[in-house]
């Protein structure tokens, strides 16, 4: 790590004074009409879901800090999350050996000094100036000298300090253009003005039964708690309301659905049974149980709405295909909607092998489908002949018309929005719908979250599958990764190297391209190195994946486009670069791409513990546990 370059910096611009709230506003008044909230601020607030005064009052703080008595620096306890105030003694800009820029600030308060460091945020050097009083909240290093990495910070200045210190202070979710200090003051004033008059829809008996605060008191305590217990009681009341209203909505919807007329498919079904007999493996008992539950629903003359949950690699897709064949064998069309083109191509290819010998045409519709193939596909779908359609959101295009759609499968449900799922469902009259997810949520939680869906779970992996060993490694341990990859690639196995990107922008993709180049030039280059990302033309992407599947390239550098559904049984190793940038569900999905046969598999998550947030650390610890 290079020494930071300490400089004296110019003072930051003064924040605009927060607005006063007009007295005649009601709960339904759009915030843009409030004094001091112009189009710019109302746009920012809208990004937080705040459009009206009511929305603003219900904006929930992410956390609170008790600033009635801040700790002096000299009394900070090592290794603990604490809040501290001090004056800025020095500010510096430095770089790690890997070239990561960081801002460093030395704080003092007469009892000691504290060093704070923010990685990848060099602009912060322009935020602080010497002599400023600053409040920091973060974990103190476990060993002396006292340091905090990436702490939350707040500069204490101005006449409105009473909103920000000497009380229990809320911290709201932020978006560009809104400061914590502005929201804190604005919402404190707004809740004083409006909370007492807020109507409470919940009958008093329910409130008493569950010892809930009155809504007016909850809203006031949310923004201006006198004690931490008041803040949590407020949050509990508002969370109850949210869950209660959501439960009412989906329970009512379920009642409506069960009254609708659906299709009673032929069960048992000769076509599905013939397909099952042709499978080169036997379904696991868990797959059989799920299939029987689905068939039982399909035989009823009301629309099925079922969630099929199961870990990555447990065999949900074959269950869905057999269910789709039940619809097809009853004279209907079936559609499987998946979130990525890679997955659509893979499902279509496998479905063809199984169902075309049975005389069932498979239609593959994806963004990259050529015009002539697409025209043929649309003609087939618009007719009434039974067939299986597999595709991405391309299935939702207005010109995709189904003549006799009776069964819909939505794969990897969390990747589609509610509107997209509804879009496919609307292409038929009350079809049976099967939603599939690999997100590992407990059964009790799934029953509540998907209260309008019946749930079945595939809770076992096919025989021979072994759990994937997951190791968290630092940059310094890269040679260990290289050795493991070399051993596995030499045995003919395959490996993924995943470079996380958020938007697949040109700048972000550069990292994936550079990584692929580095591997090609490096000692593993002889095994063949491929590259796939979201911006690659469909044909090129398909060729890359085919080469990886066929073993012409044994190492595939990829963005998170491989997150869902890539099924290459020979893939036994994965390296996830900058794993701290990904969410737990995404990491779980990615890891599911390896260990899909009976060989041992390994997943390396690469992240420097010194440079990641507390949340990222918790995610990675959960993954490797």
């Amino acid at each position, binding site marked *: 790590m290079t020494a930071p370059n300490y400089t004296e910096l110019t003072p930051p611009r003064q924040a605009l004074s927060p607005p006063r709230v007009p007295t005649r506003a009601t709960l339904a008044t759009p915030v843009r009409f409030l004094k001091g909230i112009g189009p710019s601020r109302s746009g920012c607030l809208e990004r937080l879901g705040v459009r009206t005064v009511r929305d603003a009052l219900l904006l929930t703080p992410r956390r609170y800090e008790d600033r009635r008595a801040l700790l002096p620096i000299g009394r900070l306890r090592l290794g603990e999350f604490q809040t501290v105030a001090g004056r800025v003694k020095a500010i510096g800009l430095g770089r790690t050996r890997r070239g990561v820029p960081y801002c460093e600030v030395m704080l003092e308060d007469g009892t000691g000094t504290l060093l704070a460091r923010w990685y990848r945020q060099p602009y912060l050097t322009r935020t602080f100036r010497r002599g400023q009083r600053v409040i920091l909240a973060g974990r103190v290093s476990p060993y002396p000298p006292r340091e905090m990495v990436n702490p939350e910070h707040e500069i204490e200045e101005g006449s409105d300090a009473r909103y920000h210190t000497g009380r229990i202070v809320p911290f709201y979710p932020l978006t560009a253009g809104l400061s914590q200090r502005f929201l804190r003051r604005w919402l404190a004033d707004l809740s004083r003005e409006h909370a007492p008059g807020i109507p409470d829809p919940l009958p008093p008996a329910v409130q008493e039964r569950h010892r809930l605060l009155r809504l007016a008191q909850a809203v006031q305590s949310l923004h201006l708690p006198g004690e931490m217990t008041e803040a949590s009681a407020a949050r509990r009341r508002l*969370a109850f309301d949210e869950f209660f*209203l959501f439960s009412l909505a989906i329970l009512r*919807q*379920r009642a409506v659905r069960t009254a609708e007329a659906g299709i009673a498919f032929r069960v048992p079904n000769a076509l599905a049974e013939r397909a099952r007999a042709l499978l080169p493996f036997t379904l696991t008992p868990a797959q059989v149980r799920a299939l029987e539950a689905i068939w039982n629903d399909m035989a009823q003359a009301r629309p099925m709405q079922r969630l099929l949950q199961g870990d990555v690699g447990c065999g949900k897709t074959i269950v869905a295909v057999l269910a789709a064949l039940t619809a097809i064998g009853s004279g209907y069309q079936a559609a499987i909607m998946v979130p990525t083109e890679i997955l659509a191509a893979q499902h279509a290819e496998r479905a063809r092998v199984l169902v075309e010998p049975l005389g069932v045409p498979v239609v593959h519709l994806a963004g990259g489908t050529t015009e002539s193939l697409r025209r043929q596909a649309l003609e087939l779908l618009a007719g009434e002949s039974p067939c299986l359609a597999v595709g991405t959101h391309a299935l939702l295009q207005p010109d995709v018309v189904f003549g006799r759609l009776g069964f819909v499968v939505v794969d990897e449900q969390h990747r589609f929005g509610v509107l997209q799922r*509804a879009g496919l469902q609307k292409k038929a009259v009350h079809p049976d719908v099967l939603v599939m997810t690999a997100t590992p*949520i407990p059964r009790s939680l799934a029953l509540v979250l998907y209260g309008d869906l019946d749930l079945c779970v595939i809770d076992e992996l096919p025989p021979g599958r072994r759990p994937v060993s997951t190791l968290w490694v630092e940059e310094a341990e890269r040679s260990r990764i290289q050795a493991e990859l070399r051993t596995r690639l030499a045995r003919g196995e395959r490996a993924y190297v995943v470079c996380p990107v958020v938007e697949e922008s040109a700048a972000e993709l550069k990292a994936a391209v550079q990584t692929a180049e580095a591997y090609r030039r490096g000692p593993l280059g002889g095994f063949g190195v491929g590259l796939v990302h979201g911006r690659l033309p469909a044909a090129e992407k398909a060729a890359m994946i085919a080469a990886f599947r066929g073993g012409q390239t044994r190492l595939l550098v990829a963005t998170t486009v491989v997150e869902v559904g890539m099924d290459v049984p020979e893939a036994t190793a994965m390296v996830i670069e900058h794993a701290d940038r990904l969410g737990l569900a995404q990491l779980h999905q990615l890891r599911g791409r390896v260990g899909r046969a009976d060989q041992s598999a390994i997943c390396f998550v690469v992240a420097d513990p010194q440079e990641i947030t507390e949340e990222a650390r918790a995610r990675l610890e959960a993954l490797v546990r």
Partner: protein
Amino acid sequence: MGSPTADLSLLETARAEATAALAEAPALEREWAGVRRAMEERWASRLGLAHVG
């Protein structure tokens, strides 16, 4: 507002209360009218979509 994982027992309590409310007043009438309005305000635009999951 609430976290479905951290607040699971509250979520289950709320769901049980919702089931009981609908059993008592399927159209959410009488003392449940305020709740119905609040539910429609919060979920109206999504009610038509709820049964797709």
